């Protein structure tokens, strides 16, 4: 007698529970060590404090209250959101896949009745949510104490959050793509390095794109790095519907591109897997 439920109507429900449970286990395993878990949020607070000092001096030196449509409190709140989300994606999925390949544990993770890509998507989501709750809580308090509140619009909150969700998915696809490279090459740290540094420069994690010169901002906005966590956080702190439409279009184009690329690379890579250690 088989234990597997075979009713087709019920199986879709079970498939959903499967991925939900994967997210849940990742959520709990990520919160096992409290000190390790909180250290990421403390780093966010520390960065917010540094940015506050930096941008206060910058705006004072330029003798401006507003640059590129953003005041100092807007910049700090925007950076807090982008930093909180970016830090919440740690540890990077690509490093985890690289470790799976090196340790040979991929023999299990690849050999279960689920989609390997969705397994990692929901697993990452579990870790991301647990990190994000703590990052945003501490980050919110830090920004509130350092620069005070800013006025937000419902449109900005809802549509900005939507862009952040798509941005998270785009980050997942790029990170997964880098992880899949470990099916071919022995060490992917160089790819990781390029990706994280590109995020720092063009992803609005240190310098909001609104403060870039026009020509550079136009280029940076078209790159995927700005569509991860900058675009959404920018719209939350200062909503602009035209900008939302533009960002959504760019984000969708990158999402489709990386989705197709990941699908193609995975279908090739799966034939190339070699499991270390026998």
């Amino acid at each position, binding site marked *: *007698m*088989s*234990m*597997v*439920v075979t009713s087709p109507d019920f*199986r879709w429900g*079970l*498939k959903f*529970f*499967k991925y*939900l*449970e*994967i997210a*849940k*286990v990742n959520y*709990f*395993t990520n919160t*096992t*060590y409290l000190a390790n878990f909180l250290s990421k949020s403390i780093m966010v607070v520390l960065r917010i404090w540094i940015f506050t000092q930096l941008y206060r001096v910058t705006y004072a030196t330029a003798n401006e209250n507003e640059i590129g449509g953003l005041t100092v409190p807007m910049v700090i709140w925007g950076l807090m959101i982008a930093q909180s989300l970016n830090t919440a994606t740690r540890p990077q999925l690509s490093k985890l896949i690289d470790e799976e390949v090196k*340790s*040979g*544990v*991929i*023999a*299990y993770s*690849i*050999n*279960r*009745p*689920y*989609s390997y890509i969705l397994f990692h998507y929901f697993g990452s989501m579990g870790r991301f949510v647990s990190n994000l709750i703590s990052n945003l809580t501490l980050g919110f308090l830090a920004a509130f104490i350092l620069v005070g509140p800013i006025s937000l619009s419902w449109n900005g909150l809802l549509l900005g959050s939507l862009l952040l969700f798509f941005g998270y998915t785009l980050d997942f696809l790029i990170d997964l793509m880098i992880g899949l490279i470990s099916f071919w090459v*022995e060490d992917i740290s160089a790819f990781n390095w390029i990706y994280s540094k590109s995020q720092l420069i063009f992803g609005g994690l240190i310098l909001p794109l609104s403060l870039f010169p026009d020509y550079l901002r136009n280029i940076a906005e078209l790159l995927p790095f700005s569509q991860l966590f900058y675009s959404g956080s920018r719209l939350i702190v200062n909503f602009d519907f035209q900008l939302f439409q533009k960002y959504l279009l760019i984000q969708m184009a990158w999402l489709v591109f990386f989705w197709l690329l990941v699908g193609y690379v995975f279908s090739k890579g*799966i*034939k190339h*897997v*070699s*499991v270390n*250690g*026998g």
Partner: protein
Amino acid sequence: MEENIIEVKNLKKTFKIKQKNPGFFGGISSVFSPVYKTVNAVENVSFSVKPGELLAFIGPNGAGKSTTIKMMTGILYPTSGFIQVLGFNPSRNRQQLAYHIGSVFGQKPQLWFHLPPMNTYNLFSRIYELDQKKFQERLKFLVDIFEISDLLKIPVRKLSLGQRMRCEIVASLLHQPKIIFLDEPTIGLDVIAKRHIREVIKYLNEEEKVTIFLTSHDAGDIETLAQRTIVINQGTMVFNDTTEKLKKNYIKTKIVELVLEGKTDDFHFAGGKIVEKTKYDLKIELNTEKASIEKLLNYAVENFDIQDINIFDPEMEEIIAAIYQEQK
């Protein structure tokens, strides 16, 4: 005639391994002009398995055992050849096949390291889409036979190797697979833990009629468990027959180690050959066809004060050498 549950024909797997010279310049040159070595991990292996069989697939380290298992479970793509497991092509139907098979890779963990085994079991019950009531019944049954009720709530990182291995095997049996692939399930375990795992494997095969495909380089696993044995060496099959025949023809010796109170100089036992001797320690190779372990121990007990006794099976390499010798 019963249909085969596993069918493997002319299976071949080659790996290209990048060669690196030592040192800084060696590293640089391997980037610009990489040199690859082709390794034939599995070469023209053919066999079949019937439902309910307990088959041992043995060989020394690097023989190609794990590679073959990984091709049968769909993890690795074969370079050439044919594999069918439960009617599925493993590399093409990996996900569908996964519902019906279980696997344990002795050196690799599948339990979540920082969480108790129960969390992994719950996760697997969802991954394999199990009916929750049946899952609870199945879990209770497995917990009882593997004696792990005290371990369910302890984080995996705190379990001993033997405890962890029992929990690992339970994880692979939750969905009641038709075939279980056990890759070195007793590696690194002490005698008691090994015996327990062997007993449960035997029970599952006899009572639940689960087909078991077992790899090991421990001759003891095979002697105790398998009805049929396939021996593989350097990717090639060198023996495929009953375990009884393997034992009768090639596992004729045991190594008995004795640690004595007195000196070993006066030890003279006609049925065995001393292969290693220190002041108080002796290793005797015993031909079990000519002399029994009982006789040796009687002689030792009557004439010496014994501190310790260990009995070992012959090394896998020796068994393979004996097979080659006979084939020549």
